[in-house]
């Protein structure tokens, strides 16, 4: 019991360390430091993977595989990019490969079951609108979708997005901008969304993101 308490105390001391410091400790044999990295990034990684895979089981597979790949390749991590960017890059590539093999097996991605839980009443309206938008996001070309997802959902900088997508900074920005423009075009044609988009300042926000991408 006392040993366990001591262990927990030690772990708490490690929790204040930065990702890079935790990586260094892991490289030096402190496996519990990698456990902290898993706890720190698993939610974001699951969210990201879920957007690509559309079902929870596959998304979880991507998360597990990404962490294991990261652990195995930790020696190659030099800290030039952030650990988060590096980890997300592994996840994006793993998800892309998995989607490619799905296509090769001729599985219709749209027919895959969605892990949709019970929808609360107060989210029904928003849920319906969001599903419409989600459909348009899903229809975007993969590079544009990746840039949009990383920027809008994960709040990453264009520098980080470029690192994850392994492309120049300007290309990351261009993919993001094209995604927004395409989304705007699609949604302007939707009569169901017109009221909501005008009321909520959706286009203002799109414009704001556009300005950000231009600067």
């Amino acid at each position, binding site marked *: 019991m006392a040993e366990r308490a001591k262990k927990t105390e030690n772990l708490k001391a490690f929790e204040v360390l930065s990702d890079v410091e935790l990586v260094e400790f892991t490289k030096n044999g402190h*496996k519990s430091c*990698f*456990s902290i990295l*898993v*706890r720190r990034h*698993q*939610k974001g990684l*699951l*969210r990201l993977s*879920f*957007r690509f895979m559309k079902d*929870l*089981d596959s998304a*979880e*597979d991507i*998360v*597990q*595989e990404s*962490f*294991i*790949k990261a*652990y*195995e390749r930790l020696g190659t991590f030099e800290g030039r990019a952030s650990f988060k960017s590096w980890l997300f890059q592994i996840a994006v590539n793993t998800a892309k490969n998995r989607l490619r093999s799905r296509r090769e097996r001729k599985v219709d991605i749209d027919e895959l079951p*969605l*892990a*949709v*839980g*019970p*929808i*609360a009443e107060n*989210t029904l309206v*928003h*849920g319906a*609108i*969001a*599903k419409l*938008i*989600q459909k348009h*996001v899903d229809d975007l070309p993969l590079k544009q979708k990746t840039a949009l997802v990383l920027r*809008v*959902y994960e709040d990453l900088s264009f520098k980080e997005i470029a690192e994850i997508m392994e492309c120049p900074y300007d290309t990351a920005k261009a993919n993001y901008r094209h995604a927004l423009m395409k989304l705007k075009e699609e949604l302007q044609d939707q009569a169901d969304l017109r009221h909501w988009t005008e009321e*909520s*300042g*959706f286009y203002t*926000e*799109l414009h*704001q*993101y556009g*300005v*950000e991408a231009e*600067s």
Partner: protein
Amino acid sequence: MKKHVSNLSRPSLRKRAAAPLSSPQIEPKPKPAPRSTGSSATSPREILRELDLVQLDPGPDYFNRLHDRIMSRIDKIEQKNSDPSAPSKKCSTVNTEKVLTEHPVVN
């Protein structure tokens, strides 16, 4: 004696020096307005995030279990790597449990 040449002989600097102090030449770029952080989801970003929560619905203890599964697989890799009798040093990253259920062997 060498004659001191003023920097103001450069046309660009002359122009800048001539400009009144109250009118800066480089206008600061307008910063994008801060993104909405309100609790009621109205922006597309918030709505999509809300949808994510609804769709994912992984349950209260889900992330503890996910963490434990990842760490247990890493333990197995470590064990295999330290076991000299193991056939391969590098452990497969395929989740065999899932593969067996998802792709049954066809006779």
